[in-house]
C-alpha cells in the first residue's frame, strides 16, 4: 500500500515537472497557460490520490480538494487567457488562425 501510494505521488510529481517544462518551452502566453493548466490539474489530482492511499482517513477531504481544484483551475486559466487576448498579448508566429479577433473585428465595423 505504501509503495502504491508513493508511486502515485511520484507520477503526480512527474506531471507537475512536465508542466513546469511546458511553461518554459512553449512559445507564447496562451500555449503556456495550456501547458500549465492541464499538467497541474492532473499532477495535483495524482498527488492527492497518492496521499489518500497513504492516509486513507484523509481520502474524503482530499477528494473535496480535488473537486474544488477541478472547478477553479480551469476557470482561472480561462480568465487569464481572456484577459491576455483582450490586452492583445501577441501570439506565437506559428499561430494559424484567430477566430476571436475576427469576430471582434466584425463587431467593430
Amino acid at each position, binding site marked *: 500500500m505504501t509503495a502504491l501510494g508513493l508511486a502515485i505521488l511520484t507520477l503526480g510529481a512527474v506531471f507537475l515537472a512536465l508542466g513546469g517544462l511546458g511553461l518554459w518551452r512553449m512559445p507564447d502566453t496562451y*500555449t503556456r497557460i*495550456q501547458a500549465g493548466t492541464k499538467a497541474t*490539474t492532473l499532477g495535483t489530482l495524482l498527488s492527492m490520490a497518492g496521499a489518500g492511499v497513504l492516509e486513507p482517513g484523509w481520502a474524503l477531504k482530499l477528494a473535496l480538494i480535488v473537486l474544488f481544484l477541478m472547478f477553479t483551475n480551469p476557470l482561472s486559466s480561462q480568465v487569464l487567457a481572456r484577459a491576455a487576448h483582450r490586452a492583445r498579448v501577441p501570439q506565437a508566429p506559428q499561430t*494559424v488562425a484567430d477566430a476571436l479577433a475576427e469576430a471582434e473585428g466584425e463587431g467593430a465595423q
Partner: protein
Amino acid sequence: MSDAQRPLKLFATLLLFWMILNGSLAPDVFLAGLAISAAIAFLLPGGLSVLCGARLSLRGVGAALGFTGFFLRELVVANLRMAGLVLNPALPVRPAIVRVETRLTDPVARLLLANAITLTPGTLSVELSGRWLYVHWVVAETTDPQEATRAIVAGFENYLEVIYG
C-alpha cells in the same frame, strides 16, 4: 431562471461540503452547518450550485457518472499528449483560436463545458459569448467551426444535455 428549488439545492450542497470537511456527525457540528448553510442560501438566493438546473433522475445521475468517466479519461489523454508535445525537441505546436458552437443554455452546464474543454486535449476556453465559444487549440486540427465543434464540444455536450436538459 425558473428553478424554484435553487436555494434549496445550494443549501444541500453547502451542508454536504460542510459535513465532509468536518468529517464528524456530532450534533453540534451538524447544527452549526445547518445554520451557516441556511444563512448563505438565504443571503445569496442567486447563488449557483452544480445541482442547479440538473435533472435529479436516474437518467441524470447516469449521465453525470458518464460525464465524470469521460472527463477523467480525456484529462489523462490531454496530459499524455501535452507531455509528448513538451518533450518533443521539435515542439510541433500549431496554435489557433477557433470558434465552436454549443447548444447548451443552462449557466451551470455552460460553465462545466468550458471547464471541461480547458482541461482536455490541447484546448483552452478563452471566451464565451452567446452560443459561440472561442477555444485556443495548441495543435489545431481544423479551423472550420463545425468540424472543431465536433472534435471539441460534442463529446461533453451529449452528457451535459441529458443532465441539464
